[in-house]
Structure formats: structure tokens, C-alpha cells
């Protein structure tokens, strides 16, 4: 077990990327100090610990920093191998598939999510929303194949791919509310819609996934501070 003070996580409660290592640490039963960054600024510790990207999350394990959320999750899995379930699948091929979809989520799907907020005008917004829905459709397919009838991508317990996608559920629900659309639509992505409920109810996730209300209020706050320029 980690000694007190040995594990610290620099992050912020609304960030889905920060939620990832938090969930992983919870799955492993590892106690950690959560060093919360103030919104709108970056602490000296953050800038020193992640000089390359200057971003959260950063895990500090015995004062050594590890950056990039999915790199951190894999590090946590390797560093506490006998605590809790294995986060990465045990079969190498299943691991490759989990990594593939996690990379897809970060490189393709998440940018399409943030595209919704940036879209100017009704047409652009609809196109952005369609893109997100398309991605979810692909992920629904993947869920069917990977879970093989079990509750999570990881099987009986939450795993790497559950964490990679699940961290966005709160923000998905905020988007559904502000845009008046259903993304985790039970009709279109029934597997994922039910999975989302199970994920958020899991012991490792509760307390990390903010209430949709709280996230929506935070979203209003940042939209107010970073208002998009009016269309020309």
C-alpha cells in the first residue's frame, strides 16, 4: 500500500481527464492527496511537474511526476498490481483492442465533443452533434463485441476502456441538456445508455463523477468567461 503522502494527483474536479486516474486509484484502493488547481491559473507545482504540456492531470508518486491521463492509468495498474482488479485486460489482444478504442476516444471522439461548443450557427452545431452520435454508434458496436454480455467493457468490473469513455458521461449529460439532444439515447445506443448508469453508480466512480447540475453550472461559468466571438 502507498505510504501517506506518497501519492498526489494534481487536477481539477470538472476535468474528465483528471477523473480517469482518480477512478483508477479508487479501483486500486490507493489513498492520494488531491491537489486541486484553481480555475484560470496554473500552479508552480503543475508547471514544474508537467513542463512539456503544463496540463492536468499529473500524478506524483514519491515525487516523480507522470503525465497524460491514460499513461497515468496504465502506470497505476502496473504499480499496484496486487491491489484490486487488473485495470488493463489480461489478454494481450484484448489489451490492444482496449488501447485502440481509448486512443480513438481521445484522438477522434473527444475533439468532436468539444466541437459542439465551438460550433457557430445551427448547421455547424447539428453537424458537430451528428459526429458525436456517429462516434457513439461505433463505440456501441465495440461495447457489444468487447463486453460479451457483461456489464462493462472490462467484463465484470470497470476496466481501462470503461474509464477512458466513462469519464465523459457527466459532460455528455450536460451537453444533452444545453443542446436539447439525446446522445446516450436508449433507442440508438442501448448498450452504452445502460452502461453509463452502471458506470456512474460504481463505488470507484461515485464521488469522482460530479453531479450533472454542478457540471452544468460550471459550464455556464466558463462559457461566460470565454465567450465565443460573435459570428461575422
Amino acid at each position, binding site marked *: 500500500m502507498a505510504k501517506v503522502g506518497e501519492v498526489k494527483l494534481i487536477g481539477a474536479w470538472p476535468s474528465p481527464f483528471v477523473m480517469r486516474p482518480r477512478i483508477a486509484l479508487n479501483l486500486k484502493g490507493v489513498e492520494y492527496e488531491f491537489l486541486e488547481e484553481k480555475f484560470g491559473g496554473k500552479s508552480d507545482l503543475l508547471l514544474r511537474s508537467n513542463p512539456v504540456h503544463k496540463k492536468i492531470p499529473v500524478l506524483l508518486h514519491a515525487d516523480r511526476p507522470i503525465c497524460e491521463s491514460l499513461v497515468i492509468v*496504465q502506470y497505476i495498474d502496473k504499480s499496484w498490481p496486487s491491489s484490486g482488479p487488473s485495470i488493463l485486460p489480461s489478454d*494481450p489482444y484484448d489489451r490492444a483492442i482496449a488501447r485502440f478504442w481509448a486512443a480513438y476516444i481521445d484522438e477522434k471522439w473527444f475533439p468532436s465533443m468539444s466541437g459542439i461548443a465551438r460550433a457557430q450557427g445551427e448547421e455547424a452545431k447539428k453537424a458537430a452533434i451528428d459526429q458525436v452520435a456517429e462516434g457513439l454508434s461505433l463505440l456501441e458496436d465495440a461495447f457489444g463485441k468487447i463486453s460479451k454480455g457483461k456489464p462493462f467493457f472490462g467484463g465484470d468490473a470497470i476496466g481501462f476502456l470503461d474509464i477512458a469513455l466513462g469519464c465523459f458521461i457527466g459532460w455528455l449529460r450536460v451537453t444533452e441538456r444545453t443542446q436539447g439532444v439525446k446522445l446516450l439515447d436508449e433507442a440508438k445506443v442501448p448498450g452504452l445508455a445502460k452502461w453509463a448508469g452502471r458506470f456512474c453508480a460504481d463505488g470507484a466512480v461515485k464521488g469522482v463523477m460530479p453531479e450533472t447540475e454542478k457540471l452544468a453550472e460550471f459550464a455556464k461559468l466558463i462559457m461566460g468567461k470565454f465567450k465565443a466571438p460573435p459570428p461575422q
Partner: protein
Amino acid sequence: MSEVVKLFKTWSSAFALRVVWALQLKGIKYECVLEDISNKSDLLLQYNPVYKKVPVLLHNGRPISESLIILEYLDEIWKQNPLLPQDPHERAMARFWAKFGDEKVMPSIWTALVSEGKEQEVALAEASDHLQKLEDELRGKKFFAGDNIGYLDIALGWLTNLNRVFEEICSFKLVDGERFPLLSAWLEEFSDAPVIKDCWPPHDKLIHKYIALRQAYQEKSSST
């Protein structure tokens, strides 16, 4: 049990080359399936429906895509000549820098290669900044992985060839020996290393390809 390994690649793909290096370094027998990017085979589309790209590794009929993910898979199944370090912290560092290479270094160098004028200037400044971080990361080691080639060397190996292409097309050194002595030394070591040196795509053909890409990019930029 015989392991059937196939690799879908193109003649020039730097990403597929990573997998070739890994397969050769580990002495894994494989069959090469050469793809034409302008006319992708049905098999490629079937095995990589999400991205429709090379490389795709087929192991006993099961496909894996994305070069860095393939590297990890190969390392997990074939334990000889390990690519990734065992220590969790070192593994995390190798993965971090490989991601940095793909997400920051490569795009900035590619832009610097195909653009000109102000755009090229900006891209070059960015690229230099990124290269400095790699220089610092070498810390006097022969290879990023230490005494032998490892995951991060393979992940960054594209820089070797692209640097040569850059020098020929743009007529100046991107990774110059004065500003980046360690990185320059690594480029030489890596490029001439056994296995690595036999796999480079034909130089002249590559130059032609990049000249054409550069032309296309500039035509597109001037027409917008």
C-alpha cells in the same frame, strides 16, 4: 504452433516502418502485404474499418491497428529483445515521449517541410522547441532506451529519415549538430543500426513524394 503474422503496409509509411523494425528486431517471421493508398484493398478496409489505414498487423487472423499499439502487442507476445522497459515509471516516460513525438514533433516538422514563408517560420520555431525537449530527454544516452534500441527509439525513428528529406528539399539542416548535438548523434546511431539500416524506403522515391506533397500543399494554401 505456427504463428501467422501479416503486416499491411505501404512502401513509404513511417508508421508501418515502426512495426517492420519491431518485427525484425524480434526476429518474428511475417508476410508483408503491400497496399496502394489510392486503391485500398478490401482486406485492409475490413481489418481497419475505423481508420482505413496502414499499418495493420494480423496475428493468427486477428487484426490490430495503430502502430504504437501494435508495438506494445508485439512486445507482450514475443518476449525476446524487449522494447518497453520493465520499470513502471520508465514505461510511463517512454509512452509519454512517444505520444509527444506523434502529437507535437511530427506535425510541426511536417508543416515546416511543406509550407513556406511565415507559416514555415512559425512551424520551424515550434519544431525547434520540441526538438530541444527530445535533446534534453536523451541525457547522454546512446539511444532513448539506453544502450540498445527500444520502444521510444522506434517511435521517434521517423525523425531520422524525415530529417534527411528535409535537408534535401529545404536545403538546410533541421536537426543541426551544433544546436542539437545529442539528437544528431542519436540520428546517426539509429539510422546505421543493424536491422534499422536495411529497412529505409528508397530515398529518391521518397524525395519525389515529398516534393509533390509540398507542391500540393502550397497550391491549396494559395487558392484559399
